[in-house]
């Protein structure tokens, strides 16, 4: 099949970008979306043009490195799929697709479709961990975790940190990302000692990084490739209220 791509091209973080249109021919349904872009890039290079820069690594939907908007929808709008796993069989001959990077103040565009998501790392630094220096741990079976808690923790921990939730949110909020980590750690017995401090610190880091606030649009859940439910935001808010009412040291 033949496609027309309108791709955001931007030289670097300081430049202004623009859309450039490219035809892509000979796309087959068993290719992945990124393989289709590989094909475009091979052609561009042969013609002496710089290839389109996009972040990617594992190409199996788990590293969280890939992601951009296809016709305005993060990861292309196929439920529960990262763009690297998006198959071309969902597209048809003659389709016109607009590709642009995540749009959020906290995620500056680095080049073309690649953005800087280091703000996510800094949210984790604020409290997205359980302090357990190497070597001090008790026997693994000494800590009992109810299956329900373990399952919820795992549902939340499945987040791959791709940033689609931020890109889809009209407020560019990082609530789903942060709530996923808070829910993971706060659901476990091991996570209790730092529970409220963690929640307050991560939420504070979120606003320091210029992410917006949640106004319950639910766009984040709709585009999340790991189907992280918005319910976790409610859980985080509950812990945040507790943390705010019982301020540290009181």
């Amino acid at each position, binding site marked *: 099949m033949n496609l027309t791509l309108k791709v955001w091209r931007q030289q670097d973080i300081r430049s202004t970008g623009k859309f450039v249109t490219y035809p892509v021919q000979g796309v087959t349904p068993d290719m992945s979306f990124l393989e289709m872009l590989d094909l475009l890039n091979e052609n561009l290079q042969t013609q002496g043009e710089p290839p389109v*820069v996009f972040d990617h*690594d*594992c190409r*199996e939907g*788990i590293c969280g490195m890939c992601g951009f908007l296809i016709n305005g929808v993060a990861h292309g709008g196929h439920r529960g799929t990262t763009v690297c796993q998006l198959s071309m069989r969902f597209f048809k001959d003659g389709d016109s697709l607009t590709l642009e990077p995540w749009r959020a103040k906290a995620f500056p565009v680095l080049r073309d479709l690649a953005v800087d998501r280091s703000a*996510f790392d800094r949210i984790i630094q604020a409290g997205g961990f*359980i302090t357990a220096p190497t070597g001090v741990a008790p026997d693994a079976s000494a800590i009992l975790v109810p299956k329900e808690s373990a399952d919820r923790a795992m549902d939340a921990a499945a987040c791959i940190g791709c940033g689609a939730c931020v890109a889809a949110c009209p407020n560019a909020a990082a609530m789903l990302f942060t709530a996923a980590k808070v829910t993971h750690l706060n659901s476990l017995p*091991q996570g209790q000692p730092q529970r409220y401090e963690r929640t307050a610190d991560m939420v504070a880091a979120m606003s320091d990084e210029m992410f917006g606030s949640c106004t319950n649009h639910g766009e984040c859940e709709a585009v999340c490739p790991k189907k992280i439910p918005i319910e976790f935001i409610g859980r985080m808010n509950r812990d945040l209220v507790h943390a705010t009412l019982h301020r540290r040291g009181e």
Partner: protein
Amino acid sequence: MLDSKIPSGPIEKKWEKARFEMKLVNPANRRKHTVIIVGSGLAGASAAASLGQQGYNVHCFCFQDSPRRAHSIAAQGGINAAKNYRNDGDSIHRLFYDTVKGGDFRAREANVYRLAQISVNIIDQCVAQGVPFAREYGGLLDTRSFGGVQVSRTFYARGQTGQQLLLGAYQALEEQIASGAVKMHTRSEMLDLVVVNGRARGVVTRDLLTGAIESFAADCVVLATGGYGNVFYLSTNAKGCNTTAIWRAHRRGAYFGNPCFTQIHPTCIPVSNENQSKLTLMSESLRNDGRVWVPKKKGDTRPPSQIPEDERDYYLERRYPSFGNLVPRDVASRAAKEVCDDGRGVGPGGQGVYLDFSDAIRRMGESVVREKYGNLFDMYEEITGENAYKVPMRIYPAVHYTMGGLWVDYQLMSTIPGLFVAGEANFSDHGANRLGASALMQGLADGYFILPYTIPNYIASSSLEKVDTSHPQFAAVTAEVNQRIATLIGIQGKRTVDSFHKELGKLIWENCGMARSADGLRSNLERIPALREEFWHNLKIIGTGQELNQSLEKAGRVADFLELGELMCLDALEREESCGGHFRVESQTPDGEALRNDEKFSFVSAWEWKGEGDQWELHQEPLAFEHVHLAQRSYK
């Protein structure tokens, strides 16, 4: 002479003895010592976090945008530990035994024993960090069994164990970054090692955003940069996985151990198109409940549902009745290749076998199967468009892991003093074949529990002169790195990097893949240097070195693969025996199993780079088997 520095004494006491004999660094002095760690996967992140906690000044580098992207994240199935929580006969000794045997007697006994001992601490550590391992209803940890063993010792977090273990290490690392103990350098690629007066003292890196070439000095350097499976172009590795860090170190004097030992994983989604960029693994855990089969008749094109039971060949169950579908990876892969070569493969091109869950669904119900493997079935459907609850999966072997890597001694130090190598990047503990769920164990053992002892020991017992980046050696290496980038960009030929990479991958897969012959290897030893020659004359890179340039990044990596590929073939040619994943067609038993030659080849091959002109010198580390009796592996 290679000195593996294995401590004396009984095998159960070696690690304890070694730890006691190690020199320590006073907590107040640790801050004055800098450690560079390249790579942020399980081995790198766990080492960086642990050394940061101890008080060392750590610099950690990764080429991705965040340490959480490292490819350890993609490991699915689980992590082994000799906890014996199942009361099914497991023990440290049995994990040790299984690993040495599974590796087809080409691993160092003392290292493997230590790995088995440490395995139990790893699970404790990860649980304390909040890794959400699968639990029983009573709240205790669940386990499952994996290929090549008969006990249930594999701990797992759904089909995302690697992700969860990596996030645990990543979070510990981020905590240390926040505390200032670790300085993280993302989107930063190591392009060379700096050796001063015979010791590893720093690295030269490229900032992938700006192209800036930077230097960093330290007391010692750790490479935890993963494996080199991408030499095959198509593999289950992430696209960025590469050999550059270890290859550059090899060229600076680190010996390369067992380069031809690569693992072909039996359960991957078959290749479907010419433009395919990677192969996707379906966790080996699927073999616990899925049954592998092909039609008995050649060229049988009926859909699987129309092939009656008595016309199916469950070839693993037939050939290996005691292990059945759970034979080790090398055995399962080779068996799949044989039935496909025999014309009984299924799917497009006949390069596939069925992995069938219909019995499991009948026995346990679809919901239980969904609970255990749901994400894998979903992934399969995303890629192939087929519902594996209804039709059997189609699978085929694919390159997955490299047992070879830089040679290290018992302290995980390479032949360059001060250069440590951890995780998949070292030649490691897996011999000629790695058992399932052992890679995560080894990466974390190295990073959490071995390097935090051996690095302080090195620092405390060496008299390290003060070296900073103003040392002339840093300028010299930086000049070489700049020159190489300028040369790559200056070629201005006609072919793209990917076209060279694909051609190299095909050569290695055909002649140094699942079956290797002397003729095929010799032909590669002529064709790879010719391809390399063309690469350096006909490569085309658009753009400059002073910008984010992904083609330039790839070109540097492919240039190194073009040298490593040759060494792999040389090593495979030299090793005239079959062992584990290394199958020389000239060396097999009458029923087609791998035939070792212990008399001649019971050693680790350690190759020394002798300079341009492709000359290597082979050194041997003899392997002694005092605790596991050398025997022909049998899984029948």
